[in-house]
């Protein structure tokens, strides 16, 4: 008697788009091997770029997924939310002056550093499981020596924390505002 294990059903809220079918199939294979729940799907016409095959993903895992694709050298066009009309990832940040400290907020993530020393004193906001780990890894580190959340985190919360860190680094180095 043969036994079949039913693959868990999956309906992602994000898509990885590809120029050709081979890349899409390769991506599905390497992402599945890396432990991500993904599915080959036909992208809706308004999102189609290149080929008519895409990989559906859990959008919150976008940074970790893009890292795997780059490490495995699988070409892709871009990652996009599935819902029509969604804008791109939030690019703007807000800066709060606390006197001896500066806080930068990117979407739901905040990072605060001491103005004199450039040391990270706090991170706050978010809710994905890599955030408490990143909190522990970033606190008490100089901005210039802190690990980049985009390199060690896996989720969109981590990506937003990276945006905040990037802006803090710019402020610390005294770069001109664009």
């Amino acid at each position, binding site marked *: 008697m043969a036994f079949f294990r039913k693959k868990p*059903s*999956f*309906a992602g*809220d994000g898509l990885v788009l590809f120029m050709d079918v081979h890349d899409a199939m390769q991506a599905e294979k390497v992402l599945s091997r890396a*432990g991500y729940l993904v599915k080959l799907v036909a992208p809706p016409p308004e999102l189609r770029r290149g080929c008519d095959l895409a990989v559906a993903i*859990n*959008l*919150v*895992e976008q940074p*970790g997924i893009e890292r795997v694709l780059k490490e495995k050298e699988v070409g892709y066009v871009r990652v996009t*939310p599935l*819902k*029509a*009309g*969604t*804008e*791109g*990832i*939030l*690019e*703007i940040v*807000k800066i*709060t002056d*606390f006197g*001896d*400290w500066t*806080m930068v*907020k990117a*979407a*739901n993530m*905040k990072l*605060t550093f*001491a103005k004199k020393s450039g040391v990270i*004193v*706090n*991170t*706050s*906001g*978010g*809710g*994905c*499981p*890599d*955030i*408490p*780990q990143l*909190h*522990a890894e970033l*606190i008490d580190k100089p901005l210039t020596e802190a690990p980049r959340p985009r390199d060690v*985190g*896996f*989720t*969109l*919360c*981590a*990506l*937003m924390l990276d945006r905040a860190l990037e802006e803090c680094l710019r402020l610390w180095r005294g770069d001109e505002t664009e």
Partner: protein
Amino acid sequence: MMLIAGTVPAKELPLTLTTARTEDESLVVDGQLIPCTQGTTATISAALATTSYLGRDAPQILLAGDIGQGKGSRQIYEYLIEHIAELSPEVLVLHYWLPDMRQTKRLCEAVNKCPRRPLMIADAASMYSAKAAGLASEFDIFTPDATEMAFLADPKVTHPAYINRHLFDTDITRTPRLAEAAYHDNSAAKLLLVKGAIDYIINDGNIVATITEPDIPALEAIGGTGDTITGLVAALAYAGLELAQAAIIAARANRSVGQLAKVTPATKVRQVIARYPDVFRENLYQRGSTWHWKE
């Protein structure tokens, strides 16, 4: 029983259902010390401080190690889906985990089959997945901050990283309008405790209270001070307080503890949590069968 479920940044911690205690600003979970920092541990610590003061039993906790790859999150979802009816908590708090709309839907279906429906509270990414799955109205309490309120009000997005820039580019005073949009789209829990320079308590779309004093702006920078509010409101609701009253006291307690601890943006959440017993002794009193906050 109150049950708090969420991931912790202890990669090797297996799925664990237990109670915890605090020791030297850490949580002790099955003999393992887990630092009390931003996230589920801050919520548990605040809930423990509150239940201890109110003379209620300590929360049960369902934890799994997860640093972002989702394995621990999936273990928690599956365990809850399978066992929530037999666990039958009076209060269920869902906290940090990898948002998964399909699993959240399955969990809500399992909860609806419970003989006694628990009070459902969500914060952090469990709130994200509830909203993204279109199941926000299945929940009794959400505790968003200003940006998360904008996320709830944006019908198109499944994570705050994608919110419309015009919604992000607003301040806390826009909360009433954002809440109206969120309730209209079924993207809000029955009660919202919106944390910010002004704390808004909104019940079924109606603002029932705003809290502005004491004004402690540094709290926003301290990782975990939003998580503690979730622990406070959950424990107060578990002690029998009416939900709006529990939310009002939670918001006031968090501000007062910030004042008492003389917080700065560099203060750590464990230093804040350590002062809750002092704040409760000073402000929280019992009259009749319920608890009140000294005006």
